[in-house]
């Protein structure tokens, strides 16, 4: 009997040990599977994602988006009293407190730094002379007397007169203003400075534009101006095209070399224009282009086409324009030679007005040239380039948004600059384009990061990382430069940042081809065989592959670990109960 009990106890002990072994081994398999298997699987199927400076980019979004701009105003008060000058300066500084331009969430802060203008005594003498002579007619001579200025640096001349006469403001073509005022009133000076330094409306819409909000849909004249302008870019291809009639045996010629050199180049080489972007100029001649229009005879003896028939006309030419090598936006200028049978040819707009040229917003311009008289076949038609080219230059100004000097308020005289463009207005354009570039680059970066954040199994290659970091660095550098008042350098940097931020399709293709050096061409990237390696599988296919492995392995593990856990709890409770019973 005792033996039997002993045997039974022994058997129980063996069974217990056996149970312990089984459960411990199933638990250890579970541990290995969880600690080694799962991380291994996770690591090997992970998508390559280079770390991006997420927080910095998010900061950009929150930051006062485009940089704060610092302007330096050098003031010379033409008076004997030192204290008067000093008080004027301090008054001006307080009045010109930080000025913020807001558009939606984005804003630009303008800061002004007022300092006295240091000039030699003899120069001041000459200035005094110029100002007093003929009550201000000598003022334009000031341009030569004042030191050469840079964008962001302005000179202010204040002549204080006690006599109660209407005060006068003259804004020079270069960066100076002359104000005749009574002492104690700095208001005129403030208005003059602000109108010279900032075009608030332009800044606003450029901010919005860069934010991808689209150009405002209003109908005012300012809004059509916004719609017309080309987007900020690093460069433009200006392409001049002569489109000859399709049914004439007469040959057409134009002296394009001469016209370019004499009319177009001086405009593009103007420092204020040249620093905006790089321009490349090309010209070509198209013969036998079917323009798909039908001119009608007008009462005055000529012919006209209605403005509604212009779009198909443009499309028929556009199929032959375009470049295969450059990604810069192009500005197209067409000279349409009217067929000799339909000459003179004009365009009639819906209101009935006749014109010979029109501008296509953000695309280019068209001039219709009507050969004089009824030319018979075989003769050569020579296009008069002076007129055509000057129209093109005007259209180019409008497309680029170059302001044309015009006086707005009474009592303010605006000096006209070379080619009708003043330095301070070109500065405004430059600042505007910088703000637009910065804004565009920021938006591109933020949306890129948002996209990558949302699509988790998209590869982020090192190339993208490099581009993003470069763009971010350029933006930050641009902020710093703008803060230091180096506007020109800031513009260049903002344009570069815009390119690397991926406003060009280049970066998007980088997304598709990982671990490769930047492809020189979008097409190479797009059709690269390595793109196949990227085919990420949809979830159902993924599971179809996982199930044959995971199911037969995980089911026994799960089941046995359930038993093991049950054993664990039961054994601990039995031990517990044993202890309590004891």
């Amino acid at each position, binding site marked *: 009997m005792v033996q039997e009990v002993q045997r039974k106890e022994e058997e129980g002990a063996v069974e217990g040990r056996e149970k312990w072994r089984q459960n411990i081994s199933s638990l250890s398999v579970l541990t290995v599977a969880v600690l080694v298997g799962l991380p291994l699987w996770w690591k090997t199927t992970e998508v390559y994602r280079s770390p991006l400076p997420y927080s910095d980019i998010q900061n950009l979004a929150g930051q006062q988006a485009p940089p704060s701009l610092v302007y330096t105003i050098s003031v010379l008060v033409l008076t004997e009293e030192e204290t008067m000058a000093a008080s004027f300066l301090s008054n001006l500084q307080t009045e010109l407190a930080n000025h913020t331009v807001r558009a939606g969430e984005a804003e630009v802060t303008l800061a002004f730094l007022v300092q006295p203008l240091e000039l030699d005594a003899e120069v001041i003498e000459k200035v005094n002379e110029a100002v007093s002579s003929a009550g201000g007619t000598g003022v334009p001579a000031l341009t030569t007397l004042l030191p050469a200025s840079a964008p962001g640096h302005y000179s202010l001349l204040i002549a204080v007169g006690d006599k109660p006469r209407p005060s006068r403001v003259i804004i020079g073509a270069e960066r100076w203003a002359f104000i005749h005022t009574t002492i104690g009133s700095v208001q005129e000076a403030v208005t003059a400075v602000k109108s010279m330094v900032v075009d608030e409306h332009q800044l606003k819409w450029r901010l919005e534009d860069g934010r991808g909000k689209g150009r405002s849909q209003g109908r005012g004249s300012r809004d059509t101006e916004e719609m017309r302008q080309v987007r900020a870019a690093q460069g433009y291809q200006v392409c001049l095209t002569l489109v000859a009639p399709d049914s004439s045996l007469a040959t057409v010629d134009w002296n394009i070399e001469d016209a370019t050199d004499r009319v177009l*180049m001086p405009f593009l080489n103007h420092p204020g224009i040249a620093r905006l972007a790089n321009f490349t100029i090309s010209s*070509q001649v198209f013969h036998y282009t079917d323009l798909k229009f039908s001119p009608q005879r007008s009462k005055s003896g000529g012919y006209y086409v209605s403005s509604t028939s212009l779009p198909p006309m443009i499309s028929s030419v556009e199929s032959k324009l375009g470049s*295969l090598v450059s990604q810069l936006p192009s500005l197209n200028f067409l000279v349409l030679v009217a067929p000799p049978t339909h000459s003179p040819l004009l365009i009639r707009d819906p209101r009935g007005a006749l014109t010979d040229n029109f501008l296509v917003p953000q695309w280019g311009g068209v001039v219709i040239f009507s050969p004089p008289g009824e030319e018979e076949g075989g003769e050569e038609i020579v296009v008069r380039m002076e007129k055509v080219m000057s129209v093109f230059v005007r259209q180019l100004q409008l497309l680029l948004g170059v302001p044309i000097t015009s006086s707005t308020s009474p009592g303010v005289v605006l000096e006209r600059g070379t080619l009708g463009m003043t330095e301070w207005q070109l500065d405004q354009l430059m600042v505007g384009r910088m703000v637009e570039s910065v804004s565009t680059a920021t938006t591109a970066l933020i949306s890129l990061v948002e996209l990558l954040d949302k699509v988790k199994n998209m590869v982020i290659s090192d190339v993208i990382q490099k581009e993003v970091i470069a763009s971010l660095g350029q933006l930050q550098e641009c902020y710093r430069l703008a803060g230091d008042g180096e506007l020109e350098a800031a513009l260049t940097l903002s344009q570069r940042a815009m390119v690397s931020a991926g406003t060009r399709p280049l970066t998007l293709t980088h997304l598709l081809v990982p671990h490769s050096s930047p492809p020189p061409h979008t097409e*190479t990237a797009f059709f690269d065989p390595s793109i196949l390696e990227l085919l990420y599988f949809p979830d159902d296919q993924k599971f179809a592959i996982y199930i044959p492995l995971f199911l037969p*392995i995980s089911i026994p593990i799960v089941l046995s670990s359930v038993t093991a856990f049950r054993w664990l709890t039961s054994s601990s409770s039995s031990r517990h109960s044993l202890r309590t019973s004891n």
Partner: protein
Amino acid sequence: MAARRWDWVQLLTAVFLHLTLPCMCQGRAEQSYSEALFMKFLADGRVSATFDFSTVWSVHPLLFSNPGNVQHYGIFPKSLAEVVAHYHVQELHLTLTQGQWRTRVWGYPAHPAPPGAELWAWFLPEADSEKEWPGLVDAMSGLLGAHLNAIDSASSFQPLVSFRPNGAILSKDMSNSSALLRYAALPRETVCTENFTPWTKLLPCGTAAGLGELFEAESLYDCDYHSLGLHFTPHCLDDGCGQVGVRLSLTLTVVFPPPVTSNPSILEWSLKSLFHRPLTSACPLAFSSTVTVETNSIDGVQVSLSQTPSLTGTVEVAGRRRDRAVFDLHSLTNSTTSKPLPPLSVSSSSWAYHIMPEQPELLVSRHLVGSGHDWGGLATEITNSAPHTVEVLYLEMVPWFFRLYLHTLSVSQATVLSQHYVPAKDRRRAHMLELRLSLPPLSTSYLSLQFRRAHLKWTEHKPDAHHGFYINSAVITTVLSECPNCTSLAAQDQDLAVLRLYSEPLLVSLPTPDFSMPYNVICFVCTVIAIAFGSVFNLTTRTLQPAAAAKEKLLTRILRRIGVLSKQKSD
């Protein structure tokens, strides 16, 4: 051997080249444009039409490539000029061909081209050809809507001597080096209107006037041979080549089926019947616009014209007189009235189908030998029917997935004078074999070469994997002193002519995997792992008991279930 090779280079170079010093001095660059059509009967009654539209621009090639910020293109196609300048190309040749030119019957073509697409370019000495080539390929495929993007480093070649520059040579260094050359061919490329339409856009008069009026895609593609060409070369402007310009030649060769009439022995064609379009005007931009008809191409067959030509003449081609009738479109179309030209029709006297033409001196044909999916071979037959020894260059280009064994190269009859072999590197470079052969008079030489087929990764197979893989046409290049079978508009104005012959491209099938295999393999492997894991896992987590005990236990359990045992126990 090297010395000999350079001899060849020099010889080939001497054919065209007129070495020049760049002369950047120039006033307003002149552009001139001319168009020509050359029609003739081929020996089997087919009619060949060869168009040549060429624009010569007196701008120096170096100035053309670095235009700076301002460039006035005039009538020169800007889209092409920008590509050429951007990628620093000195010479560019692109052909898109449908069908194989039958040299045996048709004689030598005016613009030889292999079936499919062929692109070769010489880059300017300062260019990095390695970097520029992929961009150029992409741009050209964009320009002509062709699928040239399939060209990669594994299908680009740098033949040492077979492809020398055709135009003026700009610097002495490049004539001896092929580092600036890239050659690629795509035999699989099909040519269609989507390539033809962008090509016509490069013509100054388009399809609106001049010879372009004849272009109607339906008739041009419903024919036996069709070859589009685009050739950009530096061009000598004067005899001494003191001034160099650039030349763009757009060529089109079409072979129409025999224009049979109700009388089977008389063949008759007109421009309208072949092209389905009338010719109504000359292109006013062209300084010359001509249609030339060869009237005695075939011996014993007289050809009569329905119209008196503007000019008739006889040119001496290799001791044989060729009568040609030239129609000047400018004089035929009165400039004041744009009436259609009087239709031109050409009819033959009794056509002798049975008379086979005299065989051209050189013929090449290549075929595939071997069976099965392992070994295979290339066999090339080169016939020299000239009564003298001919030296030729033979260029063979084989993709890397055919493992070529050079020791199996056997040449009969011909003597190998020199040999240049570039072995393949997997996925990066293809095999290239360039031989200089001396073919004995009146002989047929045989070349054969063996290869093994390699296995490709399953992702490397193209869509439609069972179609097979192509081997480029072999290229035979030679310099002929006289060329009786050449199709050429101009009389032989040079003492020597470079002749290029292309063999047939070959279509080889490779072992094709079952593309569902990866999934099957995954399933198999997973199952094996699962079984192995399962049994080990069971061993460790299940109790093993002696079989007998288990049996007894089972038995008692069954008995208990039935109720026998429990009853006993309770009893």
